[in-house]
């Protein structure tokens, strides 16, 4: 099945709900190895996104670029430019599309992830949002390759993102402010990996 513009909006709306619901948890994680603002940052950002969204956007590209720009100008911190760039790059790839098949969705998410890497230089195992997003995309692609539909593939992606999030716990952070803690960053889940897992879970929910 194809993913409609409406479902993309649902994705964002469901992510907004998720950061509200889990905002305190995200901030709690950020308190342990960061500066206790990740929840507040994403709540502010996603509230701004939903307020700025055209309820009937003409194309996926316009929709996603608007999301990216809004995040860039409302979040700040590390997660603002990173999630912002994710959506800006995804939007650039989505272009005039008004609905997306599985491959289209993958291309868009892949471009977004590359944007995050271009911006933040994170590598696998650095203990960042990358460690949830990268396995999610891999799982998405192999599920599609294995014959899953989009819904099934996004569920596989969400599971992989959650696993990637949990796998950040034993890591020592090498990027972002958690890296200043050195070995003390070990033993805590990365807040950005946790919010990234929420983002992928929201996608699975929206296309289900």
């Amino acid at each position, binding site marked *: 099945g194809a993913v409609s513009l409406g479902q993309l909006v649902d994705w964002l709306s469901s992510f907004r709900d998720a950061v509200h619901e889990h905002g305190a948890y995200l901030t709690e994680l950020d308190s342990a190895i960061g*500066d206790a603002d990740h929840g507040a940052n994403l709540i502010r950002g996603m509230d701004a996104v939903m307020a700025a969204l055209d309820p009937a956007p003409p194309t996926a590209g316009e929709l996603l670029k608007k999301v990216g720009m809004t995040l860039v100008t409302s979040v700040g*911190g590390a997660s603002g*430019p990173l999630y912002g760039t994710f959506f800006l790059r995804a939007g650039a790839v989505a272009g005039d599309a008004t609905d997306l098949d599985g491959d289209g969705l993958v291309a868009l998410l892949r471009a977004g992830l590359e944007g995050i890497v271009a911006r933040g230089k994170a590598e696998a195992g650095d203990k960042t949002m990358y460690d949830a997003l990268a396995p999610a995309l891999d799982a998405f692609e192999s599920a599609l390759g294995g014959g899953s539909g989009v819904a099934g593939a996004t569920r596989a992606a969400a599971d992989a993102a959650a696993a990637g999030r949990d796998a950040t716990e034993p890591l020592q952070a090498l990027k972002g402010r958690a890296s200043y803690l050195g070995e003390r960053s070990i033993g805590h889940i990365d807040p950005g990996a946790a919010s990234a897992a929420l983002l992928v879970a929201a996608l699975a929910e929206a296309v289900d």
Partner: protein
Amino acid sequence: MKKLINKPEDVLADALKGVAAAHPELRVDHQHRVIYRAEPKADGKVALISGGGSGHEPLHGGFVGPGMLDAACCGEVFTSPTPDQMVGATTVVDRGAGVLHIVKNYTGDVMNFEMAGELVADSGVRVETIVTDDDVAVEDSTWTAGRRGVGVTVLLEKIVGAAAEEGQDLDAVLALSRRVNGQGRSMGMALTSCTVPAAGKPTFELPEDQMEMGVGIHGEPGRHRVPIAGAAEIAERLVEPVLADLQFGGSPGIVMLSGLGGTPLLELYLLFGEVAPLLEKAGVQVVRSLVGNYITSLDMAGASLTVLKADDELVRLWDAPVRTAGLRWGV
């Protein structure tokens, strides 16, 4: 949480109202959260902007004025400002000689200023960026985020601001800013955590008998948690890593001992009374000093030491007139 605030999400907007009310010599753009000089500097001079998360006051807004910054971009508490703020500020303050962006080395700050630089690239305003990274608590490494930018940012804004004010061009201003950053080192410690308004409780719990060595300015835990000690020993633990990291031998030093927001001046002077002789003993001649709250971490109790290896030129620029809310002399 006990704070003099209204709603946590309004802290920055509300505080900027107070800045505007208290400082007619500043102009506050409430929509974009930028603090400008009410009277811009003369045409043809390099402009300086800085910015970062709020909660470090007087940094940066308190350093806007003749002799220091032209504008400060204010982010949410502990959250770097957004690129549009820097783009706007850069455009407004440029007097035709280019703009220096002063950025503390945090991933968020660096990325947001970087995006701003990209966005402003086509506008014809020449922008250069100095990223401060003076915190010796964080081991430097090419594959990590590098050291944090802390206290040297204050000294840099003062010294480089003076150079810009006297008409040095952007290349000279940039070179000077690199020199200052390269010659300054800082080390911080905390007796307590702080409370981010949106979080509503202390970022971490620190037992009565423990302290954190090697903290930054975002209420984060430090590099090491150790048993609490007296001021004399704390002074040693601040001075030692600073001196171990840079050869100061024989040169004069400009020294700042900044409180982190919750420590009273009495204690800061007391600690400085321990720090100064240690520096002198190590051959650093303390020629200028600042003791007080200059770069803070909300209501955290603690202090950070910054030592800048100086020379006649840096001392001359340090002594040049400055008229800001947070630093003021010679005018």
